[in-house]
């Protein structure tokens, strides 16, 4: 039972992460602030179109944090407490985002509109890049030591310790992590462009977005292919369920895909959807491009994250002592807690249902500059 629940919860948190990457179209859109929009009115239009959705992305990030804390607390403890600076950088980038939408257009905002626009841009570009780097560490691991029994040693006490002084910043220099960061950013930017095309009614912004999509979309697809090649050729670490011993396995993630098959199917369907979505936006009206590409991104990211931990794979490897790596088995919450959380998670479809309802209710018409001048609208 515990075994099943551990896998169930990895499915749930990795789905949350995949949904987060999709919803980071908000971040991708923010990164367009100093690109496709020029005039103040255009900027305001873009920010308002994104501003209707930013909280959904933010909430998904917070829930992902809570979900992984509840289901795999050892990861929360080891990665957050160890890769301190990486997570702090992410935190700061998200704090400044949360206030920027509301404060940017307000009189008396102290720092001036441009500062808040820079905040949004930084969150859009660096925020998504660094979250990608953090996701990359599911495959490349970190420099930590972990021993739960350290709590009994009054001189040491700390359960997990990062062994280099950079505390996570060094993860950015790992080529695979950086590539993951770039791909996540490109995915967010592609989705941001598709969202703009779908949501905004403007003769100036939309054509520019379509032109941008050609570059960004192609870069995203190429980057993603590069990422898959790197992923499938790298060495992963396998855990023996009986004795917990961890050992390196060449092409581990490729074998995870071919052994389990269903994540491979998800990945292929995901890639196809992404291609159809981008293609339909470029070559036809692309009414559903945003959701098709978004769905593809969710499936692709989800399948990759599943392969990070399923099939007895260590999902957060200690590069200092691989035997202290984190697996689904040694890092999860107890069976009882996972079961309670399972019941709670049954409400997730209900949550998705009302989010969909509200999304639809608010997106019946495109958003235009005229809308912003209506007296009844809350303007960012």
């Amino acid at each position, binding site marked *: 039972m515990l075994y099943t629940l551990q896998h169930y919860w990895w499915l749930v948190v990795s789905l949350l992460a995949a949904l987060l990457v999709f919803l980071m179209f908000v971040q991708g859109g923010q990164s367009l602030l100093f690109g496709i929009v020029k005039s103040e009115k255009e900027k305001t239009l873009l920010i308002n179109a994104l501003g*209707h959705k930013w909280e959904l992305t933010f*909430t998904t990030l917070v829930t992902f944090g809570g*979900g992984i804390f509840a289901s795999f607390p050892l990861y929360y403890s080891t990665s957050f407490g160890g890769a*301190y600076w990486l997570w702090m950088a992410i935190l700061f980038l998200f704090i400044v985002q949360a206030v920027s939408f509301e404060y940017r257009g307000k009189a008396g905002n102290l720092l001036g509109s441009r500062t808040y626009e820079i905040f949004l841009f930084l969150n859009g570009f660096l925020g998504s890049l660094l979250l990608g780097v953090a996701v990359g560490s599911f495959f490349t691991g970190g420099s930590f030591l972990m021993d739960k029994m350290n709590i009994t*040693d009054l001189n040491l006490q700390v359960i997990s310790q990062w062994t280099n002084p950079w505390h996570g910043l060094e993860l950015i220099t790992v080529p695979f992590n950086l590539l993951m960061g770039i791909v996540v950013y490109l995915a967010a930017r592609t989705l941001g462009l598709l969202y703009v095309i779908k949501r905004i009614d403007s003769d100036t912004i939309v054509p520019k977005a379509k032109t941008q999509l050609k570059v960004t979309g192609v870069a995203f697809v190429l980057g993603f292919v590069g990422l898959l090649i790197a992923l499938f050729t790298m060495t992963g670490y396998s855990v023996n369920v009986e004795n917990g011993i961890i050992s390196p396995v060449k092409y581990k993630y490729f074998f995870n895909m071919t052994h389990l098959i269903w994540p491979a199917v998800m990945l292929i369907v995901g890639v196809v959807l992404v291609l159809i979505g981008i293609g339909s936006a470029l070559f036809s009206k692309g009414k559903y491009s945003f959701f098709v590409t978004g769905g593809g991104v969710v499936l692709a990211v989800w399948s990759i994250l599943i392969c990070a931990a399923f099939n007895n794979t260590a999902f957060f490897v200690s590069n200092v002592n691989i035997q202290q790596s984190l697996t689904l088995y040694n890092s999860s919450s107890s069976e009882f807690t996972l079961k*309670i959380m399972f019941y709670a998670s049954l409400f997730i479809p209900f949550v998705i249902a009302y989010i969909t309802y509200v999304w639809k209710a608010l997106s019946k018409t495109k958003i235009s500059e005229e809308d912003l001048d209506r007296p009844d609208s809350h303007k960012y």
Partner: protein
Amino acid sequence: MLLASLLDLSRLQFALTAMFHWLFVPLTIGLGFIIAIMETYYVRTDNKFWKRTAKFWMKIFAINFAIGVATGIILEFQFGTNWSNYSWFVGDIFGAPLAIEGIFAFFLESTFFAIMFFGWNKVSKKAHLLSTWLVAFGTILSALWILIANAWMQYPIGMEFNPDTARNEMIDFWAIVTSPIALNKFIHTVTNCFVIASVVVIGISSWYLLRKREDEFARRSIRIASVFGLISLIIVIWSGDGSAYHVAKKQPMKLAAMEGMYRSQVGTPIVAFGILNPNKNISQLETDSLAYALEEPYLINISIPQGLSLLVDRKLNTFVPGIEDIIEGGYTYIDGDGNEQVAMPVRERMKKGKIALESLAMYKKAKEAGDEEGKEMALSLLKENYPHFGYGFIEKPTDIVPNVPITFYSFHIMVILGGFFILLFGLTIYLDRKELLTRFKWFHILAIVSIPLVYICTQAGWVVSEVGRQPWTIQDILTSNASLSGVSSSTVLTTVIMFFVLFSILLAAELTILFKVIKKGPGA
């Protein structure tokens, strides 16, 4: 350097972020309901005045909401970044409410927030009203789960220690969710938020009256806020009384610190007003006990005889232990099951705590060696001594005493201000009834000055709760010191400075935006 230790800095960072968070969240929670009431009037009467009024308070709500969200995420992540031992040691229990809060409350708030602000012309009036109520409901649902988590730290129940994973594991979810302390904390905190929002609404409205602007808007807003505020405050006081009762049972040292009470007596008095003797320092008890004994606890002490006994046990002659009594033990008390017990000296608990820690280490060794007998022995020792586990991390008995002056003054400031707000609400309702709200300048000024006071009051309440429970992150089970991450103090100092600078800027920006919006007024 004064703040050299990792523990002090990590606590400072948590306190800074939590107190900052608590500047914005209570107004959001309270105002959500006031707005919902106003919008309900609008839907029922179709009077545009109420729509305009509700929309003005929504603007204030939105400015606050953004920064509340921004600061909330830090608190969640900080458990991992700065309290990583804690995150593993009790994550099995503590993580669940946080995740449930995300699934149930945050999505509700953020989704319907969108309709509340952008949906005026896109959904029906009733659907909009429902959304506003759902946002308000979402804010208290969020408060519920986070307070369940907090209450569990102060009164850990429903769990069992697992020596194989070296952590506490949940065994009874409902015990945690329905803990009387959680329920009490929830009621106390949420009604406190209602009081804060009411005082803010009265204060801002009074500013308009002072400026002779927006007369009708101000008077009607005050009417709703004063009644809502007074009812809420009565519940705050009632639940505060319940809170003192629980603190006495579960955290006697916190109560002793709240009262600045070092030695107690049968029929314990309660300090109505007091000034502590700054030379009375508990750490001297071990280094210079004579000098310590010569110092009186208070410089000024006006107390109500037998008040504390009555408050915490509903009896006149109960013995409520003081700080030294708790350290020395030996007094009798009634435990949670209603049995009479003799309090154990802290030194004894420290010994037992050390045994618990050592037996866990022994258990690990025996398990690795395949020594079944050794395992059994270690396990039985561990079980026997586990209630004192946290005391194993304590170096000297006086370490279990929280900062007495901070706890004492915060508690009394909170209580005195609570009393002041009864008068404020009472006066406001009286003036409203007599149609005198617009007349007295002094009342308008008093109402405006009350805004900072209500924030001091609520912050003081949290200081009592959180400083008063030191040195524990989990009462009797885990100390703050043993909860830390393995980062250097200079690293944490850097982030403390970064947070402080960022928060100061954001707060300044928030206030200037708020002032501009208020100045423009609801007519804008």
